[in-house]
């Protein structure tokens, strides 16, 4: 997918002529993102939606690591998201594990699933990579669908009821919407810090090198296949975390979470927000979910608007909403 134009914030020092406040903002992107996320629920129509936006933003962020930064288009990310959610839920429902342990189980589930799918799929390229990941994730879907005793099958997994959580001895009421939001936000912020570290690390530079010119990266002695696989697994960690948080947030895991439409959602949100941008996935998730929720309040034909907005975005804002904004500011 090298034809696609990517926008990314270069990791090297930026040219001097740029506004210094912009430079400052970029250096502190984690801080800025975090500050925004803190204030976010106050401007949303309802808190549960704000939590969904965080979770889907994180999910799209995991996807974006692979697609935006490495140029690998996966249609199978629902399997990573779903495995995180199911394993977190199963840990609580069937094993009575505490919530934090269940989140760890969810993340590890995402990692393991990413490793399994990644090992198989990484050999293929382009549209074939997209199709192999989709095929494998559909297989995972049916695996979970059939494991009724563990997952509830068609009816979904119910009973992931966490009423109270305690952090360092402090007890929080997890039923309270704002508390739930800030707990989820804390995890998302940790993930943002982690991603920022990855991108700034030597490995981040390798990722970019592989995307920009695979042959040159290979010639420079980088192991391209290993880079791809590691990125896929990292992506699985983010998506697994998102899934686990989703299970805790909704207290159920529907089988639909594994469906290929959920994979498509990650693609849509990333592209809408601006792939290869740090904050784009969240913008994409916010715009998509807000649009869906608000428009569906006044017309049952909300899909017409969602579809039309996509077309307009593709035709006139090819770099996504956030990407286009970044570009404007940089000019």
């Amino acid at each position, binding site marked *: 997918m090298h034809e696609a134009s990517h926008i990314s914030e270069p990791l090297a020092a930026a040219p001097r002529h740029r506004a210094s406040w912009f430079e400052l903002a970029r250096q502190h992107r984690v801080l800025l993102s975090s500050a925004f996320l803190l204030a976010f629920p106050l401007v949303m129509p309802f808190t549960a939606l704000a939590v969904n936006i965080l979770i889907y933003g994180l999910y799209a962020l995991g996807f974006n690591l692979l697609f935006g930064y490495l140029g690998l288009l996966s249609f199978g990310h629902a399997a990573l998201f779903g495995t995180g959610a199911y394993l977190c839920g199963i840990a609580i429902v069937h094993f009575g594990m505490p919530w934090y342990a269940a989140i760890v189980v969810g993340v590890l589930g995402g990692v393991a699933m990413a490793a399994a799918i990644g090992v198989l799929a990484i050999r293929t390229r382009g549209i074939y990579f997209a199709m192999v990941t989709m*095929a494998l994730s559909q297989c995972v879907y049916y695996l979970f669908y059939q494991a009724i005793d563990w997952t509830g099958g068609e009816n979904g997994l119910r009973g992931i009821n966490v009423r109270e959580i305690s952090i360092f001895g402090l007890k929080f009421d997890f039923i309270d919407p704002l508390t739930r939001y800030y707990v989820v936000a804390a995890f998302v912020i940790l993930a943002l810090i982690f991603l920022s570290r990855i991108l700034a690390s030597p490995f981040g530079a390798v990722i970019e090198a592989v995307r920009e010119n695979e042959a040159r990266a290979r010639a420079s002695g980088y192991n391209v296949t290993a880079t791809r696989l590691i990125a896929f697994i990292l992506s699985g960690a983010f998506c697994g975390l998102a899934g686990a948080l989703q299970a805790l947030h909704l207290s159920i895991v529907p089988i639909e979470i594994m469906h290929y439409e959920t994979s498509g959602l990650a693609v849509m949100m990333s592209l809408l927000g601006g792939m290869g941008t740090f904050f784009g996935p969240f913008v994409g998730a916010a715009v998509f979910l807000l649009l869906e929720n608000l428009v569906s309040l006044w017309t049952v034909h909300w899909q017409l608007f969602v579809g039309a907005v996509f077309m307009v975005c593709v*035709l006139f804002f090819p770099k996504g909403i956030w990407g286009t904004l970044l570009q404007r500011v940089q000019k």
Partner: protein
Amino acid sequence: MAGLTLDLIGLQLFTGLALGAVYVLLAIGLSLIFGMLTVVNFAHGAFYMLGAYVGVYLLALGGNFWLCLVAVPIIVGTIGLVVERFLIRPLYGRGIDYPLLLTFGLSYVIVELVRIAFGKAGYPFDTPELLQGAVDIGIGYFPLYRLFVIAAAGVVLLGLWLFLERTSFGLIIRAGARDPQIVRVLGVDVARVWLVVFGIGTGIAALAGLLAAPLQGVIPEMGGPILVEAFVVTVVGGMGSLLGAVLAGLLVGVVVSLSSLFVPEMAKVSIFALMAIVLLIRPQGFFGRAGLMS
């Protein structure tokens, strides 16, 4: 398994072929459009659905099924021409993600417009009177209409083959698929070729929808699941390969059909398992060009 005989398995194979015929018609359009335009057309399922609805509309106006067989592909194909000209053409050269996303958005729009125009509930679609009933094909009775679907797909394929192999326009298409640059240098209007190819692809998709309508009725969502299955067919056959689309379409039809007989709980996953296996062994599909789109 109660009541299972060799004849039944034979019949199941035939059913698989009928199902496969619909897959083939969809996949061939997808493959043609992809091979020429490198557009992954996510609106293909919507055009398929549109074909069925245009059929419903024409029948309500007093048309008959045979007229629809001609009129539906032409009408929907024309819509396809408009879509290519005004929506997809601006995106050439921007990479495959953009047409993919655009057609994805377009499919939402088309489905919703159909819901607004025809309602959400769907319509019954009676089998044309001439084709009702079943005929003895040696191993048992088989619905006549399904035989007709297989035959109709065969005729379309033959027509398409003749068009590509025997006409000068077909020659340009084939050349354009191989190297659009050279064709352009030779003074051929490639844009016009792509326009026509998109129109043909969507027209065939519409025909497939019309043919499927008497089998399962007509609803706005009918294009969704089958689009995914058609993608599987296209990929297994090799993106851009017409022969691959035909063989893979029939194969997938038979696999779905047999697995729903023997292991119904696996029927839905069988085609994905098939696709995963094929791609892991042969990453470019049966007849795909290696390295394409990488």
